[in-house]
Every structure is written in C-alpha cells, then in structure tokens.
C-alpha cells in the first residue's frame, strides 16, 4: 500500500476532465507581438505573463455576440473572486480585431463597463495577425453599407493563457460561466502540479 502510494505520488498528474474547456496537449509558447492597450500603452507578450489570462476576440460595434460573451466572462470573474484558494484573479482581455474603429479610449469605456479589471487591446493589422494566427483565431470583414459601416465575422472561442504567456486551453461556444470557472480551477491545479 505504501509502495502504491509512493508510485502514485511519482506519476505525472493526469489532465483534468473538463466540462467545457479543451486543454492543449502541451502548452504552446506564443511568439512576441506588439499591441496597444486601452490606455494607449504598448501591450506585448510580457504583459501576458505573471497571471492567467482569459482572452476574447471581437469588436465594439458588435451589439449581440460580444456583449453577451463579455458579460459571461464578467460572471466567470465574479465566480472566481469567491474562490478562497485563488491567490490572484485571471486577467480578462478583450482583443479588438477592428482597429480602424476601436481606439484605446473606445475600448476603455467598453471593457470597463463589463468588469473594471478588464483590459482592452488592439493594434495594427499585422500585429493582430501575429497574435491571432498563433491561436487559430480567425476574423474577416463582412457586409455593411459603407466603408465605416461593416460587420466582422470572428472566432467566438475564449483563449486561456497560462502565467508564462503560453496558449494553454480554449473554450468554445456555448459558454457557461459556472462551467468555465470550475474548469479554470481544475486547469490551474493541474498546472500547479505539473510545473
């Protein structure tokens, strides 16, 4: 029995069974990128490090899917704030894939409405693409009546970065805040045991 206990202690931790999230087979390092945050300051890979980050990709002219997702993410944060075993809350990041219309000031007003701790970022198309292509996030303009009036099709997934800034897990739709919060705690425990 003692030997069995010893053996199990030496075995690598098993990936958790998640309700909604998908864990990457191995955490994927992300190459550096250079975006602008909602204060107009540079936001790079370094800013993803030190904390877990939930990231959602969208645009502020989107009245339906994006507010629904950000409200949902705010609920995840509210659940996690009640967790006693969580020393620091993950960052909530909204990446605007519409830099032509979403300025840092627009983003600040928008994201802070959902959660005062959310951070909005955007950037030049090429820099956005540098980040999104590493994550499998897709987006493209569609429809619209004029150059300023268009819609954007975009990936609806929420990406989870680990505190080393690596692509660690993703959450596809439909999103349920309770399931995502409990999945996050399992993912975090697994990460702590694995590192």
């Amino acid at each position, binding site marked *: 029995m003692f030997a069995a206990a010893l053996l199990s202690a030496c075995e690598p931790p098993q990936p958790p069974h998640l309700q909604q999230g998908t864990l990457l087979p191995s955490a994927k390092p992300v190459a550096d990128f250079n975006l602008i945050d909602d204060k107009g300051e540079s936001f790079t890979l370094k800013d993803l490090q030190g904390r877990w980050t939930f990231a959602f990709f*969208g645009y*502020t*002219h*989107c*009245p*339906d*899917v994006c*507010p*629904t997702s950000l*409200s*949902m993410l705010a*609920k995840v944060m509210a659940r996690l704030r009640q967790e006693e075993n969580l020393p620091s809350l993950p960052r909530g990041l909204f990446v605007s894939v519409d830099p032509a*219309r979403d300025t840092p000031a*627009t983003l600040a*007003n*928008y*994201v*802070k*409405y*959902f959660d005062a701790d959310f951070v909005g970022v955007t950037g030049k198309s090429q820099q956005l693409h540098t980040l999104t292509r590493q994550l499998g996030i*897709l987006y493209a303009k*569609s*429809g619209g009546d004029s150059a300023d009036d268009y*819609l954007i*099709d*975009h*990936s*609806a*997934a929420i990406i989870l970065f680990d505190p080393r800034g690596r692509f660690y897990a993703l959450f*596809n*739709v*439909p999103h349920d805040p309770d399931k995502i919060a409990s999945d996050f705690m399992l993912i975090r425990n697994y990460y702590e045991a694995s590192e």
Partner: protein
Amino acid sequence: MRFLLALLALTTGMVSADGGLAVQNAWIREAPPGASMMAAYLTIDNGSDQDNALVGVSSPTFPRIMMHRSETVDGIARMQHVERIALPAHGSVELAPGGYHLMMATPDPQPVAGERVALTLHFADGGEQQVMAPVKKKP
C-alpha cells in the same frame, strides 16, 4: 416633448387588433458608454392559423432599426442582415442573444437601464403592434 407624446399616441392608435400575434419579453440591452450599437430582443407568438412574418421595427428613439441574425458556425460568430423573420402559424419565434435580434445605432442621449422605449413591430400582413421595451443591464 408634446410632439413626442402626440407621436406616441398616434403610433399607439395604429396598433392592429390582430389577436393572433402576441409580443412578449421585449427588452433592450443597455450599451456600454459610447458604444455605437445596441440590440433588442423579444418573443413573438403567432397563435393564428396564418403564417406571418416580422418585416420591420420602428421607434421614435431609434431612427433606424435593422433585423439581424447571429450564428456561430464552426466556431466563427457571424451576423447577417435579414429582411424578414418568419412567424409560422401556431409557432413562436424568440429574438434572443446569439440569434435573431434587432440592431440599432445608439442615439444621443444613450438610453440607460430603467428607461422604457417604444418599439412598433410591422408584420407582413400589414398589422402593427407596439411594445414598451425596458432597457436592461444583462447578458
């Protein structure tokens, strides 16, 4: 203000007596400050024997209301403009987050939670119904 009240009375007066359609649970999602677009949702029950369709929505608060449908296919969220929303006989259609919704440019001043906004629904059979939609802060 007097003009708006008169307009409202006029609009209300135009409500059709079609008992077959019932509009319920209308609400408008409060937009973040400065957000350019807002969305509204509601449920329409068609209790009649006739197929019908929602062909437009108007409001004194919003100069232009469009009907849209969001859908997520293969992980990509898309929004499409629709000209009409079918209301099958004895059926119910829900305009809800992530699906059919009304989309309108945010007016100035921006309607906030607690306010109520008149929406007039226009149907394919020529009928109209007016609802008062509360602005709400919810997903």
